[in-house]
C-alpha cells in the first residue's frame, strides 16, 4: 500500500503551502499598501511644497515691486501737488530719495518738452546743464556713482526712442489714452552697463500728461533673493515680463545667462507656452534643459504684469520614496526566509515519525504481524516525547494486540467451517423433502377443488331439471284438455264447409245462364241502334214526309242505346259474380282438406301428451333421491377441501422455512470462508519463522 507522496501533498509541503505562503502574502500586501501610501503622500507633499515656494517667490517680488512703485508714486504725487516746474527743488528731492533708499540705484523726473514753460531758461541756479535734455527740457536722472565725492551723480536721461525708450513712451501712451496715472514696470534692460528695471508713474497735471517720474532698481538684489528661495525649496524659479526674463535662479543652456534674454529665444519657450494651458495647476513635462521629468507651477505677480514659473525635477520626490520602499521589502523578505527555515526544521522531524507510523500501518494492512521487518528508522522514531512519537509506540502495541486476536480467530474459524458445512447439508435434505410433500399436497388440493366444483354444478343442474319437469307436466295436462275441445270444433266445421261448397256450385251455374241471356240482349240492342240510324237517314232523305218517322227512329235509337248500356252493366256484374263464386268454391274445397288433416293431427297430439304426463310423473321420485344424494356429497367434498388446504399451507410454510434455513446455512459457510481468508492474510511470528525455515530447506 506504500505510495509515493508528492512534495506538494507531504507534511512539509502542506505546512509551507498553508502556513508560510499566506504569511508571506500578508507581509507583502502590507508592505505594498504602505509603499503606495508613502508614494501618494510624497506626491501630495511635493505639490504642496511647490505651491508654497511659488507663493513665497510671488509674495517677495510683489512686495518689492509695490515698494518701488510707491516711491515713484511719492515723486509723482509731490510733482502734481506743488513741485511741478520747480526744477531745483525737484532735483533736491530726487537726491534725498536716492540717499534714503539704498535698495534703489537711481531716480528720475522727465518733463514733456517745455511742459513747464521754462525750457528756454537753460541752466540756472540749482539746475545744472546735465539735468536738461534736448531743447532745455527737464530730463534729470540722479544715480549712485562711487567715483563722485558725495556718491551721487546727475546726468541727463537718454532721449526715449524705440524699444529702449519704453520707460517713457509706455506710461505716456497709457496716460494719454485713459487719463489715469497708471504705474508701469518696464522689462529689464541694460542701462549704461547695469541690468535694471524701471518703475515709472506718469505725471498728470490738470488732466494733461506733462511727464514721468520713476525709480531704477538693479536686478542683482532680486536675483540673490530668488537664489535663497530656490536653494531652500530645491526648485528653480523663473520670472518673465513682456517676453523677457526678469530673473532666473539657474543659467540657461551652455552656461548663458537667461537674464535680459527673450523668452521666445530660450529653450524654455515651450514650457512658457504651456502656462496658458495649465493656468494655476501644476503639470509635468520633460524639461528641455535638464532633459528629465519635472513638475512646473506658474503664478502671476499682481503688481507689474510679471509671471513666475517654478520648476522642480520629480526625481527629487521619487528618490526619497524609493529608498523607503526598498528598505521595507528587504525586511519583509528576510522575515519570510526566517519563518521558512524554522518551519522546515519542525516539519522534517514530525514528518519522519509519521512516515515511520505509516510504515508500520502499511505492514499490518499487508498482513505482516511478525514485526521482523521493523526498520531501524521505525525503532528510532519510537524514541521521543511528542504526539508523533506516541503514535509510533501505539502502532507497535496495536501490532502485538492484533497477533493474539488473529490467532484466536483462526481457531474459531476452523470449528465454524465444520459446523456450517454440516448445517448446509442437513438444510438441503430437509428442503427437498418438504418440497416434494408440498407438491403432492397441492396436486391433491387441486383435484378436490375440481370434484367439489363439478358436484355443485351437477346439483344445480338436477334442481333445474326437476323444476322444469314439473312445469312440463302441468303444461301437458292443460294442453291435453284444450286439444280435446279443438278436435270436436274442427269436426263440426268440416261438416259446415261441405254444405257451403255445394251451394256455391249451384250459384256458379245460375250465373253462367245469366251471361248467355245478357249477350243476346246486347246484340239485339246494337242491331236496333244501327237500324234506327239507317232509318233516320232514310227518313231524312224522304224529306218532310219522313219527319214523323225520323222522330220515331230517333226514339228507338235512344232506347236501344239504354238497353245496350244496361246489358253491358249486367254482363260485367255477372262476370265478376262468376269469378268470385269459382274462387270461393276452390277455397272451400282446399279448406275442407286441411281441416281433415288438422283434426287427425290434434288427436295424435292428445295421445302423445298423455304418455308424456305419465312419464314425467314417474321421474319425479328418482329426481328427489338424486338431489339429496348430491347435496350430501357436496358437503363432504367441501370439508375434505378445507382440510387439504390447511395441509398445503403448512407444507408451503415448511418449505419456505427450509429454504430460509438453507440460505442462512450457506451465508454462514460463506462468512466463515471470508473470515478464514481474512485471518489467513495475517502472518504470525512462528509462521514467518517456519516460512523462513522452509526457504532455507
Amino acid at each position, binding site marked *: 500500500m506504500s505510495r509515493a507522496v508528492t512534495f506538494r501533498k507531504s507534511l512539509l509541503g502542506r505546512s509551507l503551502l498553508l502556513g508560510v505562503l499566506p504569511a508571506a502574502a500578508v507581509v507583502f500586501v502590507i508592505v505594498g499598501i504602505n509603499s503606495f501610501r508613502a508614494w501618494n503622500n510624497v506626491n501630495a507633499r511635493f505639490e504642496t511644497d511647490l505651491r508654497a515656494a511659488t507663493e513665497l517667490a510671488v509674495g517677495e517680488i510683489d512686495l518689492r515691486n509695490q515698494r518701488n512703485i510707491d516711491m515713484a508714486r511719492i515723486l509723482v504725487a509731490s510733482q502734481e501737488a506743488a513741485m511741478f516746474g520747480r526744477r531745483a527743488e525737484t532735483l533736491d528731492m530726487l537726491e534725498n530719495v536716492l540717499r534714503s533708499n539704498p535698495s534703489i540705484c537711481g531716480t528720475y523726473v522727465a518733463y514733456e518738452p517745455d511742459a513747464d514753460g521754462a525750457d528756454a531758461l537753460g541752466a540756472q541756479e540749482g539746475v545744472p546743464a546735465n539735468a536738461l535734455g534736448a531743447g532745455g527740457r527737464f530730463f534729470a536722472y540722479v544715480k549712485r556713482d562711487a567715483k563722485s565725492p558725495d556718491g551721487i551723480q546727475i546726468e541727463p536721461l537718454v532721449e526715449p526712442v524705440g524699444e529702449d525708450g519704453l520707460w517713457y513712451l509706455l506710461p505716456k501712451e497709457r496716460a494719454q489714452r485713459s487719463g489715469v496715472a497708471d504705474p508701469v514696470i518696464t522689462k529689464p534692460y541694460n542701462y549704461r552697463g547695469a541690468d535694471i528695471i524701471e518703475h515709472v508713474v506718469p505725471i498728470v497735471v490738470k488732466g494733461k500728461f506733462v511727464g514721468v517720474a520713476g525709480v531704477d532698481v538693479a536686478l542683482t538684489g532680486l536675483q540673490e533673493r530668488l537664489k535663497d528661495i530656490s536653494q531652500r525649496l530645491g526648485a528653480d524659479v523663473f520670472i518673465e515680463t513682456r517676453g523677457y526674463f526678469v530673473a532666473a535662479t539657474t543659467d540657461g543652456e551652455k552656461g548663458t545667462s537667461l537674464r535680459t534674454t527673450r523668452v521666445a529665444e530660450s529653450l524654455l519657450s515651450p514650457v512658457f507656452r504651456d502656462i496658458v494651458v495649465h493656468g494655476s495647476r501644476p503639470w509635468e513635462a520633460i524639461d528641455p534643459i535638464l532633459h528629465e521629468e519635472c513638475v512646473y507651477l506658474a503664478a502671476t505677480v499682481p503688481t507689474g504684469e510679471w509671471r513666475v514659473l517654478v520648476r522642480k525635477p520629480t526625481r527629487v520626490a521619487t528618490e526619497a520614496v524609493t529608498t523607503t520602499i526598498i528598505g521595507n521589502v528587504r525586511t519583509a523578505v528576510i522575515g519570510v526566509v526566517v519563518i521558512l527555515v524554522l518551519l522546515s526544521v519542525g516539519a522534517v522531524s514530525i514528518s519522519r515519525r509519521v512516515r515511520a507510523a505509516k510504515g508500520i500501518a502499511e505492514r499490518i494492512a499487508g498482513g505482516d504481524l511478525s514485526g521482523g521487518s521493523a526498520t531501524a528508522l521505525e525503532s528510532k522514531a519510537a524514541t521521543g516525547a511528542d504526539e508523533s512519537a506516541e503514535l509510533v509506540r501505539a502502532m507497535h502495541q496495536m501490532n502485538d494486540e492484533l497477533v493474539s486476536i488473529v490467532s484466536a480467530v483462526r481457531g474459531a474459524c476452523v470449528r465454524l467451517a465444520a459446523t456450517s458445512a454440516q448445517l448446509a447439508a442437513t438444510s438441503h435434505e430437509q428442503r427437498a423433502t418438504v418440497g416434494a410433500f408440498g407438491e403432492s399436497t397441492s396436486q391433491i388440493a387441486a383435484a378436490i377443488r375440481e370434484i367439489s366444483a363439478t358436484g355443485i354444478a351437477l346439483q344445480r343442474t338436477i334442481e333445474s331439471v326437476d323444476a322444469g319437469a314439473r312445469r312440463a307436466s302441468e303444461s301437458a295436462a292443460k294442453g291435453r284438455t284444450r286439444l280435446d275441445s279443438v278436435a270436436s270444433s274442427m269436426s263440426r266445421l268440416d261438416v259446415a264447409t261441405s254444405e257451403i261448397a255445394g251451394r256455391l256450385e249451384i250459384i256458379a251455374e245460375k250465373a253462367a245462364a245469366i251471361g248467355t241471356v245478357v249477350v243476346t240482349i246486347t246484340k239485339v240492342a*246494337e242491331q236496333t241502334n*244501327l237500324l234506327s*240510324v*239507317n232509318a*233516320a*237517314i232514310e227518313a*231524312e*232523305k224522304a224529306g218532310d214526309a219522313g219527319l214523323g218517322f225520323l222522330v220515331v227512329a230517333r226514339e228507338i235509337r235512344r232506347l236501344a242505346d239504354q238497353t245496350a248500356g244496361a246489358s253491358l252493366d249486367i254482363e260485367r256484374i255477372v262476370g265478376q259474380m262468376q269469378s268470385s263464386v269459382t274462387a270461393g268454391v276452390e277455397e272451400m274445397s282446399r279448406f275442407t282438406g286441411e281441416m281433415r288433416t288438422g283434426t287427425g293431427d290434434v288427436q295424435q297430439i292428445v295421445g302423445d301428451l298423455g304418455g308424456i304426463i305419465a312419464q314425467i310423473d314417474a321421474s319425479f321420485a328418482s329426481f328427489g333421491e338424486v338431489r339429496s344424494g348430491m347435496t350430501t356429497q357436496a358437503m363432504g367434498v367441501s370439508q375434505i377441501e378445507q382440510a387439504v388446504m390447511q395441509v398445503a399451507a403448512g407444507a408451503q410454510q415448511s418449505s419456505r422455512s427450509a429454504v430460509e434455513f438453507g440460505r442462512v446455512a450457506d451465508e454462514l459457510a460463506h462468512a466463515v470462508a471470508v473470515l478464514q481468508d481474512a485471518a489467513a492474510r495475517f502472518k504470525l511470528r512462528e509462521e514467518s519463522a517456519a516460512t523462513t525455515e522452509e526457504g532455507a530447506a
Partner: protein
Amino acid sequence: MHVLFTIVNERRFAIDCAEIIEVLPVVSHRPAGTGPAWLLGLINVRGELLPLVDLSVIVDGKPTQPKLASRIVVLRLETELFSSQATKVGLLVPEIAGPVMRDFDAAGVHAGFAFTGGSHLGPTIADEDGMVQLLRCRRILEGDAALRQLPATAWEQP
C-alpha cells in the same frame, strides 16, 4: 242540312246525310296490299264489293283503332273522276252520332285554310258541344293522286 257526326281523336267532323246510303257495323275486309295508307281494302256489302277508306288516316294521319262503336258509313259520291258516274265507298269511322240538323252555309270564310290538299275539309261552325267541321267526302277521292293510279277496273268492275 242533316249531318251525321263522327269523332276522330277528339275532333268532331260532320258528314252530309245526303251523301250517306247506310251505316253498317264493322265487317271484315280484304286488305288492298298496295296503294295509299288510307285505302284499307275491299268489303262485301250484300254481294257488292266496295273500297274501304280509313277516315282517321285522312284527317289525322293515324289508322283507326278497332273498337265496338266503330262503324262503316257507305257513301254515294258524285265525282267526275270516274266518267261522271256516281260511285259507292265505305268510310271507316271511329264512332257516330246523329243525325242532327246543322247549317254550315252560314259559317263564312276562315283565313288560313285555303291550301292545296285540304279541299276535303269544309267550313267549321260552333254548336253547344264545341267546334265541328264539315267533311267534303267527294273531295277525298279527288284530292289524292295515288287513288287515280289504281286500275279503273278495280272500281268499275267489282
